[in-house]
């Protein structure tokens, strides 16, 4: 099922072209929107919310034209901006209740929903304290909660892991996965860090310079390049030379040897070479293809 679609979407500002003939379709589940800073991700979200008119082309969200039915779209869509957007003197509860009312929920329903959603994002007793005293991780949770409080059908998350430490990043990614899988709310999540999206997304769209670079299911990204990483205590060079002799594609990256998997035989070749050279094997692991690689590949 198509959640949103754009067709030839173009947005020109006086000095830059933010989106250039962008045509994408997004289905249910979690979709990652990847691009460097300035690739046009935030502009795309604003157009999809009906807050910014496109220069040309069409955008449709949940079957509604973004150019003409913005208010209807905004009733059933949630938005978590990239920037800080929380008033420090309110508590998370007060703030999220207020935002629920702004989405059209009656006051009692707003209270119930706010309590529910704050629990789901993992804010407990601290939700009664003023937001000014929260950590970055807690603030991000409040931002996510306000985007979900009205139970949208689709939620736009703009760089939700920005500024988080590794633990906070993992928590946020797990939460996003839950929103898509457990809550049944479709997610469009942007990031300039590609590696983290492959952990939570069903589908990834890569844009660069406002144009589509690639759009495919997550499986296709990681299948494209399959490689194994080999680490030995000493003698990396002889091993690389031996494997190269056998016709394997090898590359030395620091202390790690990356070997492209041509067939099942590659694994045997690595094992035999290590034994023959009498090396101490420290690590032998499958290296998944990274979404980063799409920037190196020609556009599909």
């Amino acid at each position, binding site marked *: 099922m198509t959640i949103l679609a754009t067709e030839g979407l173009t947005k020109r500002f006086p000095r830059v072209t933010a989106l250039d003939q962008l045509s994408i379709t997004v289905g249910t589940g979690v979709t990652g929107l990847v691009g460097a800073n300035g690739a046009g991700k935030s502009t795309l979200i604003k157009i999809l919310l009906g807050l910014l008119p496109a220069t040309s082309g069409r955008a449709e969200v949940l079957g509604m034209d973004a150019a003409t039915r913005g208010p209807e779209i905004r009733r059933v869509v949630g938005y978590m901006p990239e920037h800080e957007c*929380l008033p420090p003197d309110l508590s998370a509860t007060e703030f999220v209740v*207020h935002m629920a009312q702004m989405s*059209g929920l009656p006051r009692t329903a707003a209270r119930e929903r706010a309590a529910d959603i704050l629990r789901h994002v993992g804010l407990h007793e601290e939700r009664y304290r003023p937001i000014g005293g929260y950590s970055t991780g807690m603030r991000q949770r409040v931002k996510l909660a306000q985007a979900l409080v009205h139970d949208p059908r689709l939620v736009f998350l703009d760089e939700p892991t920005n500024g988080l430490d590794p633990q906070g990043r993992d928590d946020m990614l797990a939460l996003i996965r839950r929103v898509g899988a457990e809550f049944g709310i479709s997610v469009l999540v942007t990031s300039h860090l590609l590696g983290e999206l492959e952990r939570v997304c069903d589908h990834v769209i890569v844009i660069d310079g406002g144009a589509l670079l690639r759009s495919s299911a997550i499986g296709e990204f990681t299948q494209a390049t399959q490689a194994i990483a080999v680490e030995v205590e000493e003698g990396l060079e002889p091993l690389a030379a031996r494997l190269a002799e056998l016709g394997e594609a090898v590359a030395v990256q620091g202390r790690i040897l990356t070997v492209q998997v041509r067939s099942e035989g590659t694994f045997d070749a690595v094992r035999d070479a290590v034994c023959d050279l009498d090396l101490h094997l420290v690590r032998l692991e499958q290296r998944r293809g990274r979404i980063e690689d799409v920037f190196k590949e020609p556009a599909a």
Partner: protein
Amino acid sequence: MTEHTAIIHDIGYRHYEGPRLGRGSAARALTLHSLRGVFGLGRTTRAKIIPFLLVAIMVLPAVVSIAVMALAKQPGIPYYSYAVAMQAVLAIFLASQAPYLVAPDLRYRVLPLYLSRPVTVLDYVGAKLVAMTTALFLLLAVPLTVMYVGELLVDLPGPPRTHDYIASVVSTLLIALLLASIGLALASFTPRRGLGVASVIAFYLFTSAVSGVFYAVLVSTGREAAAGWTMLISPFFLVDSVQVALFGTPPANSGGYPAGPWPALILLAVIALALTALISRYRKAASS
């Protein structure tokens, strides 16, 4: 062996099946939330001190006036000049509360969260304007009404001053709208709350001083007609001049105002200017 332990059942995510009201309901909720906030309701105790203190100061003369009417059987403070007499209190209330209404949402960039919902820029600005206008109206209309009810109860000789009361309530509405539009516009251009307070107070002092100085200079040089015009620089005298033109009440200043429709037109023009500035400020903030 079974061991009984307390278990918290995670009932999982529940979808919301209830009503989703429209823009109007969101705008009403925002208006009410803002109006409560102006008086410090739903905020910290500290935030309640200034508004409640100012309300008390506003009501005090009305109470005294009732006492005078009851004891001396004399008419109390005139209704039509209450606003001009209490102008400093109204100005302080505006300066302390208008920045609260608009500054934090701009400074902490909460505005995009409103605009990503059914609420539009005009809904948002409208809600803030209605809240501030209502607050100022209540601040002034409550003591006037208390005084009028007091006058009816005391039952002075002669008819009650109903005409004056109605005139003052109508001009209260005008002064509330004028002050709210100017105050919110000034505060919206200075997202730091402290600066907003300072700019509104500065505006009040400046207009009062300028109109006062020009008036005195022009009167002393014998140009009474021109002096009347300079009084209109002060928002309080501007509304008073409209009240004089509409209801024929005695002017709160000694010299009188220019006759004809001009004061009313100037009042409308100033309100329109302030609202245009306010809305364009938010249109700009929304697109950034």
